[in-house]
Structure formats: structure tokens, C-alpha cells
């Protein structure tokens, strides 16, 4: 009896599948009806009953309100179906009812960890629709704030993912640095999150005088803080056992599924829109793209940590080369004239009044503009019908598309690996559900 208890597990899963007579891609196996079946058939002994449970919307490890219908056999995941929409806020519908400059606060609340990126995606798209060139200082400021936001987004990911894998103290260290970054945002844009700092035509306010010095201190401090995180986790036996060779998906399969960002780079493909299709001022900086080899959880972790270092390098270079000059374009049809001018010149008053009441009209046309957000390619499609309100705003959210690879990562693994895969995938449910 002891002998067949210890037989090879691949054999069991293999027969487990054939016994249930369905391939994993088909609609969900319903445990009730399977359990009802007589399992005493030749294949599966009764001891492994198939169970379908909800790792539902309210779960500490789903990083938001993602619901996973998981079919389990003991600890092994047989099938997995993500169900989304529990945070669907109808943002794209609301944007169709707002004038262009009112859309920005909606758009940045989608993926609430990379709000500067979504502002840039929308403003960049509209600027290309109206062929408006933003001044160099504005594009440098945008790059600085976006890279700070990338570091902050990776910090929140590192804190919560290490929390999921049991390294609870990482949460406190990462949020300590996050608060340092949010102080910088508060200094330059006035608010910690959802700052609405970018405007079509540039940024809406120049950075205050002390900002450069504070940013330099932060950039000096950040690299050795990253060393501290790596010292904590890199050779941590539990972390290695949990992330090494877990959730590996081949590069071709990732590309087929449209996965981009750190997941794709961890699999060995150096695809980063900042290098491939440089936008804003990324062409002026030299930074490298970290690339993994195997594409397992550990590579995804190392790629993101190295990306944080690269972002610090970019910020330092951007800060050194910050050009003087206007921080917002001077085209009165689309950008508010300076306040003092409104008091004196009549045209400025007319422009001001027109922009504030009805907002600027964008000539009919449509454009798709994609940038590199911390989770992958973030694309914004704006369809303008000539009125002051966009006719359609659609965001191609990286988490929404990357979530399709989650099934390939987790089916066949254990539940603990499922939690680790979800943590390393870093989905933000605001972006997934829009």
C-alpha cells in the first residue's frame, strides 16, 4: 500500500486530467458536478477530491478586488479563471462627458499607482492630436516626475509582495521611501497622489526653488536604500525557495499574450518603449534596460529593483540638464495665458474666458499614443469629434493584458506559488477594471 501512495505526482496530474476528460482551457470544471460523479473510476482514487473555491474580491493577497475561481486538487491548482470588474468605475464613459482639461483627474485615477504615466499618456495623445510642441523644460520635468512615480510604484509593489511572501518588515521600509517621494510630489504639485501636475502643453506650475536640492538628496540616498532591500531579500532562503523557477512562461507565449513591461523583460526580451520608441526627453539620457534570463519570480523581482536604480540615474541626469525657460507651451488657443497678462491685455482675457468656460476644441481625428508605465505598455486612444469633449478615451492598461498570462503561470503549480505569481505580476485593479 505504501508503494503506490508515493508514486510520481506528474503521473497523478496527468491521469487527473484525462480522467476528468477536459483540457484546462475549456470553461470551468464545476466541482459540485464533478464531485457528484463517481470518482472511483480506474484513474483517480477518491482521496483527491476536486474543489472549486473563490479567491474572491475580498482577499488579502489579491492586491485589490480581483476574484480568482480556482479549481484545486489538494494543494495543486487545476484550473484558474480570473473574474474582474469589481472595481469598474466607468471612467472611460465619464471622460466622454467632460471637456479635455477636466478629463485629466479622471484619467489619473485609473491605475492609481502610476498616475503621472496616465496623465502623460492622455496629454501626449491630445498634444499629438493638436500638434502642440511642449517646451524642453516641461518634458524634462515630466520625465523627472514619471521616473519618481516609477520608483514609488515599484516600492509599493516590493512592500506588498514581500508582505505576501512573509517578509513583513519590507513593507515598512518601502513605505518609508515612498513617503519621501510623496513629499517631493507635494512640494512640486501640491498633493501626494493624483496631483494633476501635467497639463496639455507642459506642466501647470514650475518646481519651487528648494525642489532641486531635495531631489538631489533623495537621489543620493535612494541607491543605498535599494542595497538594503537587496541585502534583506536577495539571498533570503525562503524568498529564493518561493520565487526561484516558479511561474515561468516562455517569451513567445508572453509575446503572444501581449505581455509587456517587467514581466517580458524578466523573460529576456529587452523591450522598453523608453528605448525602443523614445518619447519626451528620454532620448537625451543614457540608462540601461535590466533584463532577466529565466523569467521566473526571482527574475521579475531583480528586474524591478534594477529598474529603480536606473530611474534614479535618469532623474540625476535630468536634474543636471534641466533647461531654463517656459514650463508650459505658449499657444493661447490651448493653454491658459499667465494671470498678470489677463488683467492687462484684452486678447488674454478672451482666451482665458474661452478656455475656462468651454475648453479648447480639438480638430476631428484619432490617435493612439503608448508609453512605458511601471507595469508595461500604457496606451491612450483618444477619438476627437471636433467638440470640446473627447468622443472616446480608451486606455490600453498593461495590468489588464498581463493578467492573461497569470493562468499560464499558475495552472499546475501549488496555491502558494499562485500567491507568489500574483504578487510578482503586480496587477493594479484600478487599471484592470478602469
Amino acid at each position, binding site marked *: 500500500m*505504501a508503494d503506490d*501512495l*508515493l508514486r510520481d*505526482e506528474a503521473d*497523478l496530474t496527468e491521469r487527473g486530467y484525462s480522467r476528468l476528460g477536459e483540457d484546462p482551457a475549456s470553461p470551468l470544471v464545476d*466541482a*459540485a458536478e464533478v*464531485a457528484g460523479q463517481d470518482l472511483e473510476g480506474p484513474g483517480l482514487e*477518491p*482521496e*483527491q*477530491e476536486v*474543489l*472549486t*473555491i*473563490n*479567491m*474572491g*474580491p*475580498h*482577499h488579502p493577497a489579491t492586491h485589490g478586488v480581483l*476574484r480568482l475561481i480556482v479549481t484545486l*486538487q*489538494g*494543494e495543486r491548482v487545476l484550473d484558474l479563471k480570473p473574474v474582474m470588474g469589481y472595481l469598474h468605475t466607468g471612467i472611460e464613459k465619464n471622460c466622454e462627458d467632460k471637456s479635455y482639461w477636466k478629463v485629466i483627474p479622471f484619467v489619473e485615477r485609473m491605475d492609481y499607482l502610476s498616475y503621472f504615466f496616465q496623465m502623460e499618456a492622455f496629454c501626449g495623445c491630445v498634444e499629438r492630436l493638436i500638434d502642440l510642441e511642449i517646451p524642453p523644460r516641461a518634458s524634462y520635468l515630466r520625465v523627472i516626475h514619471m521616473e519618481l512615480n516609477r520608483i514609488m510604484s515599484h516600492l509599493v509593489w516590493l512592500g506588498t509582495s514581500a508582505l505576501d511572501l512573509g517578509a513583513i518588515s519590507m513593507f515598512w521600509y518601502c513605505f518609508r521611501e515612498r513617503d519621501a517621494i510623496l513629499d517631493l510630489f507635494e512640494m512640486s504639485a501640491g498633493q501626494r497622489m493624483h496631483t494633476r501636475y501635467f497639463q496639455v502643453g507642459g506642466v501647470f506650475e514650475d518646481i519651487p526653488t528648494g525642489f532641486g536640492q531635495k531631489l538631489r538628496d533623495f537621489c543620493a540616498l535612494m541607491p543605498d536604500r535599494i542595497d538594503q532591500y537587496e541585502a534583506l531579500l536577495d539571498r533570503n532562503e525562503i524568498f529564493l525557495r518561493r520565487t526561484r523557477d516558479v511561474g515561468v512562461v516562455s517569451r513567445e507565449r508572453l509575446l503572444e499574450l501581449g505581455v509587456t513591461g517587467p514581466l517580458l523583460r524578466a523573460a529576456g526580451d529587452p523591450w522598453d518603449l523608453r528605448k525602443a520608441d523614445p518619447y519626451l526627453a528620454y532620448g537625451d539620457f543614457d540608462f540601461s534596460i535590466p533584463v532577466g534570463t529565466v523569467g521566473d519570480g526571482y527574475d521579475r523581482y531583480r528586474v524591478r529593483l534594477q529598474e529603480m536604480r536606473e530611474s534614479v540615474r535618469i532623474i540625476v541626469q535630468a536634474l543636471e540638464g534641466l533647461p531654463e525657460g517656459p514650463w508650459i507651451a505658449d499657444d493661447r488657443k490651448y493653454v491658459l495665458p499667465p494671470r498678470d497678462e489677463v488683467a492687462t491685455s484684452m486678447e488674454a482675457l478672451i482666451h482665458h474666458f474661452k478656455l475656462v468656460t468651454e475648453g479648447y476644441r480639438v480638430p476631428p481625428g484619432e490617435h493612439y499614443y503608448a508609453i512605458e508605465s511601471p507595469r508595461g505598455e500604457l496606451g491612450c486612444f483618444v477619438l476627437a469629434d471636433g467638440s470640446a469633449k473627447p468622443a472616446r478615451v480608451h486606455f490600453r492598461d498593461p495590468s489588464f493584458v498581463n493578467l492573461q498570462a497569470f493562468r499560464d503561470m499558475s495552472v499546475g503549480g*501549488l496555491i502558494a506559488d499562485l500567491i507568489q505569481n500574483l504578487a510578482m505580476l503586480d496587477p493594479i485593479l484600478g487599471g484592470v477594471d478602469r
Partner: protein
Amino acid sequence: MLQSYLPVLVFAGLGIVVGGAFALLNGVTGPRRPNPIKGQPYECGLPSHITRTFRFGVSFYMIAMLFILFDIEVVFLYPVGVLVHATKSVFVLVEILVFVVLLLVALIFVWRRGALDWK
């Protein structure tokens, strides 16, 4: 006679009183507002469709048995320090070593058979 057992009694009494307080106080003083949903199993905020009792896989059973086996061994090793100190004889030490080695052999057997790695 009673003198030597008094601390044990006091200790047991305290344990019961404090334990009982924690267990019962909540039920006695907490407000009671039952509603049909509160009784149902909590499955991440959704009604759960698990109707039948769940039969656990053999791996859980194996691990549980091995744990109990080696846990009892540790319990037996508790008085080792006192015994060796009190008797000061090598014989007791050797006897305990034999006990430990026997269980070590059992552990190695179980390990080589592969019962420890998860299925």
C-alpha cells in the same frame, strides 16, 4: 503533602480563570445581533457553494502523522537535562542517545522514501 502541590493548584486555577474569562466574557458582554448571512461560511465575500464535507488528500495525513511522531519524541526529551544532572551517570546519557539514534534512523528512512516532499 499539600504544601508541595499548592503552586501547581494556584497555577492551574489561574489558568482556568483567565482562560475562562477570555472565552466567556466575549459571549456574555458582546451585543448579539444574529442575521442569516452571519452564519454562512465566509468565502472572500461571495456565497460559497461548497456543499459536501471536503476529503483531504493523503499528503496532509502523511505530514500530520510524521509531525505527531517526532513531536512526541521531543516531549520525551524534555526531562533529559534534569535526569542527567540528577543521576550523573553515563548510563542514562547513553540510553537517551540510543533513543535519539533510533528515531533518527526512522527519520532517514521516511526521508529517503520521499514521504516528506509534498505531492
